[in-house]
């Protein structure tokens, strides 16, 4: 079976950004999720929190004079927007664990149909590094996973059960991939959107778990 060609990482980020609303507090995980900060519409004021201690940063900064103290949790240079503030790590995670973030956008290795997330350890690579992923997965009010729909080798990542060690159980609300937008619902995965030119059947073919089509499966909009 040929894996359908999906959208770019940038378009995944653009699609995730459309989930964000004015006034929300949002944490972006390491990797793909960090791109989201660059695609928020100008009229939507989102408070991006970096667990290393910045709340209210903007997009990734231009190359040039690197300020080592103005970085996001991925270590990338960022700028501060008006209304930003600085936190220490205990304060940043009190905000995360205390349920004060509206959304966490996290990278994923595997997501199960009941919303379990595995994103911190590739068994072949060994482990480990946890970082802030467990806190974010459990603390944010809504967890969006942004990832490629399959591994580079084509193995499914939306599974009946995760086979990798879990980051957190029953935490994921929405998965945005290069092929589809999938919600985690009480009956399992619900296929809501497909990438342009990709059919629901093609998405199901590279998804281990069953995808329940939403009443109105649409094309992903960016």
């Amino acid at each position, binding site marked *: 079976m040929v894996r359908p060609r999906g959208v770019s990482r940038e378009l995944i980020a653009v699609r995730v950004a459309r989930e964000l609303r004015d006034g929300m507090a949002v944490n972006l995980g390491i990797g793909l999720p960090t791109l989201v900060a660059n695609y928020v519409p100008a009229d939507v004021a989102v408070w991006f929190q970096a667990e*290393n201690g910045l709340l209210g940063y903007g997009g990734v900064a231009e190359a040039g004079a690197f300020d080592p103290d103005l970085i996001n949790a991925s270590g990338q240079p960022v700028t501060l927007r008006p209304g930003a503030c600085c936190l220490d790590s205990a304060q940043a*995670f009190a905000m995360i664990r205390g349920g004060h973030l509206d959304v966490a956008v996290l990278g994923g290795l595997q997501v199960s149909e009941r919303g379990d997330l595995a994103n911190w350890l590739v068994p072949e690579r060994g482990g480990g590094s946890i970082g802030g992923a467990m*806190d974010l997965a*459990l603390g944010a009010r809504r967890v969006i996973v942004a990832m490629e729909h399959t591994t580079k080798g084509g193995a499914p990542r939306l599974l009946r059960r995760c086979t990798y*060690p879990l980051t957190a159980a029953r935490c994921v609300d929405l998965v945005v991939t290069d092929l589809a937008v999938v919600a985690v619902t009480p009956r399992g995965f619900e296929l809501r959107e497909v990438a342009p030119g990709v059919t629901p059947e093609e998405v199901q073919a590279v998804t281990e778990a069953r995808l329940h089509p939403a009443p109105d499966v649409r094309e992903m909009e960016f």
Partner: protein
Amino acid sequence: MRDKLFQSPQAAIHDLPEGATVMVGGFASAGVPEHLIRALVERGTAGLTVIVNSIAADRAVDALCRKRQVRKAVTSFAVRASAARRGLFEEQYRQGLVELELVPQGTLAERIRAGGAGIGAFYVPVAPGTVAAEGKETRVLNGRLHVLERPLRADFAFIRAHKADRAGNLVYRGAGRNFNAVMATAADVVVAEVDEVVEVGALDPEHVVTPGVYVDRLVVCRRGPVPWYQEEA
């Protein structure tokens, strides 16, 4: 007033003993007490337990593994995502030469805060059912499974701040507070390296982040444009 100012990083850690537990602040490039770490590398003190957010991403701390000074790390990042950039700690960990206590980052920060704040233990809803909860007590509180976590304290804490006054009050820059501000409360000897020391009274009481009573020693170390560990690595 007692003078907290030391003339060099070496002098500021002259009595750090073998087998000590050392907290090291910093997160990626922000707020890393690199001169104190370098002084500890030079000093060669062995048998250390290092409490640090990332021993994988922080090459300054990883340099402590060159001469096997680290016995154990308590950290949230021990292994880089890319196998191409293995750290010394990771190498030694895979060979069974060092001990690793892997802690979710928020729990790590909270355990240090608890160590400084006289909290005997606390329950968090983070990590039940994961490797980070192995061997730990769990309990259902408010309908949710929690894990019992213990406080962390250290013999020394290495802190990087922006400015200090001579009483030890500290202010930071941007994301520089990170683990520095909590570690400053949780060690017997707290050593802060700073960009600048100002007179007592020059910092606005409303702006002080770390009160001077937490800080034992100060050393002025200006940051260069390129961190030393990048040159040497």
